[in-house]
C-alpha cells in the first residue's frame, strides 16, 4: 500500500475503492446515530412512530378540517401522510447532513477518514424512520379501508432514490458550506420549514394555477411527492414529465453538491 501526500490542486477525485474500504465505519457511524437517539428513553423506537402520526393529526385538523384544503377526494389524513412520508426523509436528512461535519469536528481533526462518509451516514437515520413511518401508514390505510394503488408501491424505491440523491447532494453542499460559514445552522432549518409550503405535501398541486405550476416543478421534491400520491391514490395520472425533471434536478444537485464538498474537503481540518 502506497500513500502519497501532497498539496492537491483543483477537484479531488471520489475514491470509490477507499470509500468501500471504509464501509464498516459508515455502518458504525449510522449505527451510533440510531443507538443514540433512543438511549435512556422509555418509549425508545416508539417515538419514530409517534412523531409522524401526531404531525398527521395536527395537519388534518388544521388544514383538512379547519382550512378545508381539498385533497383530491382522498381522506385528508392519508393524503397528507403520503406527502409527509417522503418529505420527512428529505428534511431530516438535509438537517442532519448539514451539521454532520461540524458535530464530528473532533473526529475530522484527529483521524483520517473519507469525509464524505459523515454526511452520508447521517442520512441513514431518516431512512430507518421512514421504515417505521411506513408501518404507521399501513395502519392508517387499514383504518380507512383504503386500498393503495400498485403503481405507487412499485415506483416507491425509485422515488426514495431520487430523494436520497437530492438530500445527499444538498446535504454535502451545506455540510461543507457550514464548515466555513456557520450561518447555515440558522438559515437552513428555517429554509426547509418554508420549503414545505412550496411542495405539494399539504395541498394537491391541482390548486395551484397552471401558470405558476412551473415554480413548484423546479423543486425536485414536488415531482417525487406528486408521483407518489398519484401512484398510490390513482386519482390523477402520473405526471411523468415532472418526475423526469425531478430526477434530472436531483442528479444535478448530487453532482454539484459532491463536487463542492470534495473541492473544499482538504480545508476542513484547518477551519473546523
Amino acid at each position, binding site marked *: *500500500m*502506497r*500513500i*502519497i*501526500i*501532497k*498539496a*492537491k490542486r483543483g477537484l479531488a477525485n471520489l475514491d470509490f475503492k477507499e470509500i468501500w474500504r471504509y464501509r*464498516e*465505519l459508515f455502518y*458504525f457511524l449510522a449505527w*451510533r446515530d440510531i*443507538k*443514540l437517539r433512543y*438511549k*435512556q428513553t422509555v418509549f425508545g423506537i416508539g417515538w419514530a412512530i409517534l412523531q409522524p402520526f401526531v404531525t398527521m393529526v395536527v395537519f388534518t385538523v388544521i388544514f383538512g378540517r379547519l382550512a378545508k384544503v381539498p385533497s383530491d377526494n382522498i381522506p385528508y389524513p392519508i393524503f397528507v401522510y403520503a406527502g409527509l412520508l417522503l418529505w420527512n426523509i428529505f428534511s431530516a436528512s438535509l438537517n442532519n447532513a448539514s451539521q454532520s461535519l461540524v458535530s*464530528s469536528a*473532533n*473526529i*475530522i*481533526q*484527529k*483521524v*483520517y*477518514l473519507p469525509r464524505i462518509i459523515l454526511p452520508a451516514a447521517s442520512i441513514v437515520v431518516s431512512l430507518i424512520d421512514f421504515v417505521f413511518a411506513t408501518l404507521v401508514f399501513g395502519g392508517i390505510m387499514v383504518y380507512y379501508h383504503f386500498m393503495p394503488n400498485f403503481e405507487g408501491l412499485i415506483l416507491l424505491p425509485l422515488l426514495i432514490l431520487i430523494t436520497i440523491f437530492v438530500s445527499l447532494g444538498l446535504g454535502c453542499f451545506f455540510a461543507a458550506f457550514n464548515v*466555513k*460559514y456557520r450561518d447555515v445552522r440558522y438559515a437552513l432549518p428555517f429554509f426547509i420549514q418554508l420549503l414545505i409550503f412550496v411542495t405539494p405535501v399539504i395541498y394537491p398541486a391541482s390548486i395551484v394555477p397552471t401558470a405558476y405550476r412551473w415554480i413548484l416543478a423546479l423543486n425536485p421534491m414536488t415531482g417525487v411527492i406528486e408521483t407518489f400520491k398519484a401512484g398510490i391514490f390513482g386519482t390523477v395520472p402520473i405526471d411523468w414529465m415532472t418526475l423526469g425533471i425531478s430526477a434530472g434536478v436531483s442528479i444535478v444537485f448530487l453532482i454539484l453538491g459532491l463536487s463542492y464538498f470534495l473541492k*473544499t474537503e*482538504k*480545508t476542513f*481540518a*484547518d*477551519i473546523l
Partner: protein
Amino acid sequence: MPNPIIKVNNLSKCYRIGVQGDRWRYKTLRETIMDGITAPIRNFAKLQNLTKFGTSDDEKDVIWALKDVSFEVNEGEVLGIIGNNGVGKSTLLKILSRITEPTEGFAELRGSVSSLLEIGVGFHPELTGRENIFLNGAILGMRKREIEERFDDIVAFAEIEKFINTPIKRYSSGMWVRLAFAIAAHLETEILLVDEVLAYGDIAFQKKCLGKMGDIAKGGRTVLFISHNMEAIRNLCKRAIWLDKGRIVKRGAVDEVVRDYRDNQIKRFAGSSYIVERNLEDVNNKSFYFSHVEMLNTAGEHTNIFRYNERLVLLVDLVGYPATRAYNVEFRIHNELEQFVSIGSSAFHGLLLNKNTKRLRIEIGPLILTSGRYTISLSAVDSVTGIRYDDWVRCGAFDIVECSPFGFGHEIPTNREGVCVLQQSFRQVE
C-alpha cells in the same frame, strides 16, 4: 540502503491565525451603526480568506507551521520527534495522517498507517464501553472482525471487565483513559504515528503504556513518536529529530539530539538568580556582612543549573570590618526536602580569613547530588569562639537537572532516592 518506508520531502504548511484587530476605542453612534451594517461584508471577506493565502510572504497573520521539513525513516525504525510546544510536531503528524494537506512539498508512506493523535476519538458518553470499543476501533481504522478478535485483550488491558456494559459517562477519568489507550494500543498497522499519548493515567498505568509502546517498537513496526518525556524517547527510539519553529534543527542518534535539546532548554530557561544582592534591611546594624554572591560554572558562565558531577563556583563579596582577627566562611547545602546535605568551610582548608578579605571564590564539586533543587546558605564564623558574625540563609539556589551518572538513562531524583549518588560499580563474579 533499502527503500525507506517513509519519505518526507520539503514539507511545508502555513496557517492563517487571528490577529488582534483595531484596538477598541470609543465609537460614535453613527460609526457603531455603520459598523453593524457593514459587518456582514467584512465577516464574509474574513471568512473567505480563511483558506486563501496571498503571495506576499510577510502577511502578518500568516505563519509557517512547518517549513522545508525533510527526512526518511526505514522499516522497523522508531523515530523520536522532540521540540517545545507549538513548533510543528503535531502539524507534521497531522499531515502524514492525511488529516490536513501540506502547502508545499510531499511525503510518501509505503504501508498501512494509523495515527494516534489523541485517544478516545469519537467516544460518546451515552454509549457503553463495549459500544465505544467498536466505534472508536472503527474510527481508528480497525475492521469489525479485528475488533472482535482483540476485544478481550483490550478489555483485559484496560482492566474494566466489570464495567464493559455501562455507559462511559459513568466511568472515572482513569477508566476512560485506560479504555481509550487500550483500544489504541491494539492497532496493528505497519506504520504508527503517535503524538504524546503517554501522558495519561497514574504512574502504574503509564508504566504499562510505556511497556506496550516498547513491545510495539521491538515488534518491527515503524513508529514516529512525539513526546516531551525524554526518558521514553531515549528508551524507545534510536534516532530522533528536533523541531523548532517549524524546521528541523538537529537530527541524529537519539542521545545526541536529546542532549543538545536539553542544553538548549537549560540556556533558555535558567533563572536569573545567579547574581544576588544582599537585602540591606537584613543587615541593618551589622558592621560586617556578605553583600553579594554570584554563582557560576567552571567555565566562568553565570548559571544555577548543573548536572551530576559538575562543579559549582561561588563568588562572595564581604563588606565591613570583622571584630576579630580571624574568621571562617562556611556554606551549607540543603535539598528541596530541607534536609541538610553538606557543609563546607574555609577552616577545612586551613584558610583563615581576616579583615583584608573582600572577595572569596568557593569551588564546590564534583556535585554527586541527586537531581532536584538545592539552596546554599553562607555564614561567617569566628575561628576561635564560634560566634557568628553573619548568616545569609538561602542566598542562592541551584538545580541539578540531570542525574544519570552511569550513562544508562536512569534519572535519579531527590525526593525518593536519597541526597547523593555515590560512585559505584556492579559486576557479576563466579
